[in-house]
């Protein structure tokens, strides 16, 4: 069964954890302030070269907000020369005409713009800054540089009922691709989960509205609706399997099989400043921990679905069951499914009882990581 692992295809470079926004659904680690040191330009260039040599070809620059790195253009140019397909995942804050032109000249292939909501008030509340108008401006700047506009909207309890406005906004902005992604509960989003989890009816309504919209705009905008896995019966095939095709490098140089994995206890994630990516990818204990299928417990171990979903997400298993090698508890066969069900059953009460909503900022990060 166990064959030599394949090579990485996707490299996610989380260039920095600095970010001008403070999204409550941010999936960055809660203790990100502890990882404030950042790789130098040269160290990133080394990462890009080594990963490309291993076979990585899709590259995402993200963060935090990658635009706060003023060497982004240099990194894009290097990546372009190496033959990567380069995606920039940005909130748009810090982007202006000159910067987009420079990134384009350096060889940037694609920009994904994240948007919080379509109503100014809600947007400002959820991202905690006045960014809505800015994003509208940025979207048109992106278009003018000849890029398609790919808009990513994270969905949750507070904006799902505004889906029609979000869709209309996408139409007004002449968006080419619209990704409506239900919140994934990691990092800050997990911390705020009981506030953000939508009622099942909200999801059904939003999906219906999205389908109607799809029909109406037929072909003009490509709309993706990413479901909320808590509300599903089966887990997502997380990362296409651990250590299978995805490689994340954090701002401070740790190599992770997925951008959440840093929180898993008992695994020490190697740093690119100490080892080569080849050693990390093929030989490190962390990358081999959940590779393949041999680590699985029941019910996954004997389930025919294991080849398709790889038992779901290790981080979700850890967060909800305390053991990363358990079946992802969103699975209907998981003996821990009740941990998800309890959260869903509590929807409404939890949100109404006004439990605290934590904005992702340095003060909260410092406070929460010293606990």
């Amino acid at each position, binding site marked *: 069964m166990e064959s030599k692992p394949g*090579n990485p*295809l996707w490299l996610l470079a989380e260039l920095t954890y600095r970010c001008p926004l403070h999204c409550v659904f941010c999936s960055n680690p809660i203790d990100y302030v502890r990882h404030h040191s950042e790789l130098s330009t040269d160290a990133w260039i080394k990462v890009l070269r080594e990963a490309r040599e*291993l*076979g990585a*070809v*899709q590259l*995402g620059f993200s963060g935090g907000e990658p635009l706060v790195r003023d060497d982004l253009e240099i990194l894009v140019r290097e990546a372009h020369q190496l*033959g990567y*397909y380069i*995606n920039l995942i940005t909130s748009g804050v810090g982007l202006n005409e000159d910067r987009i032109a420079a990134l384009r000249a350096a060889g940037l*292939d*694609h920009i*994904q713009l994240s948007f919080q909501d379509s109503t100014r008030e809600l947007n400002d509340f959820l991202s905690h800054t006045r960014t809505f108008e800015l994003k509208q401006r940025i979207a048109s700047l992106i278009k003018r540089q000849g*890029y*398609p506009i*790919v808009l990513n909207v994270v969905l949750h309890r507070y904006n799902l009922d505004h889906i029609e406005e979000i869709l209309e906004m996408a139409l007004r902005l002449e968006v080419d*691709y619209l990704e409506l992604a239900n919140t994934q509960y990691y990092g800050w989003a997990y911390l705020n989960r009981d506030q953000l989890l939508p009622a099942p009816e909200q999801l059904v309504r939003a999906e219906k509205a999205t389908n109607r919209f799809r029909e109406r705009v037929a072909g003009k905008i*490509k709309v993706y609706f990413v479901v909320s896995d808590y509300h599903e019966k089966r887990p997502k095939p997380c990362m296409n399997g651990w250590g299978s095709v995805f490689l994340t490098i954090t701002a401070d140089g740790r190599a992770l099989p997925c951008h959440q994995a840093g929180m898993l206890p008992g695994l020490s994630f190697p740093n690119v400043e100490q080892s080569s990516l080849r050693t990390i990818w093929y030989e490190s204990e962390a990358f081999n921990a959940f590779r393949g299928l041999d680590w699985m417990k029941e019910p996954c171990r004997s389930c025919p679905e294991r080849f398709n979903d790889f038992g779901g997400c290790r981080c979700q298993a850890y967060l909800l069951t305390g053991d990363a090698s358990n079946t992802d508890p969103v699975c209907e066969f998981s003996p821990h499914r009740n941990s998800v069900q309890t959260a869903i059953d509590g929807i409404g009460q939890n949100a109404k009882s006004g439990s605290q909503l934590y904005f992702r900022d340095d003060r909260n990060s410092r406070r929460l990581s010293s606990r």
Partner: protein
Amino acid sequence: MSAAASATIGFDDVPVLASRFRLQWEPAQQAHVLLYPEGMVKLSNSAAEIVKRIDGAAPIGAIVADLESAFPGADLRSDVMEFLEIARERGWIGIETR
């Protein structure tokens, strides 16, 4: 069979690679891949041979002729048509009618 919305493809039509799509040889995969925003597909050799010839100017007839001279003895018409249908359906290419 075919939906009214998608007219059948003819030999004079010109396939065009969708914007932001890039064909590239990947040594690590020993294959050509089609790269696009946040995704990629690994192409079979025969698919890659077709995509290589899509330059936004050559009509399908010319692409087929060129393939048949590169791979003599094969009747590739239907294979090419079939691939182009799928590629259009998946949004990899557009077809400009002439």
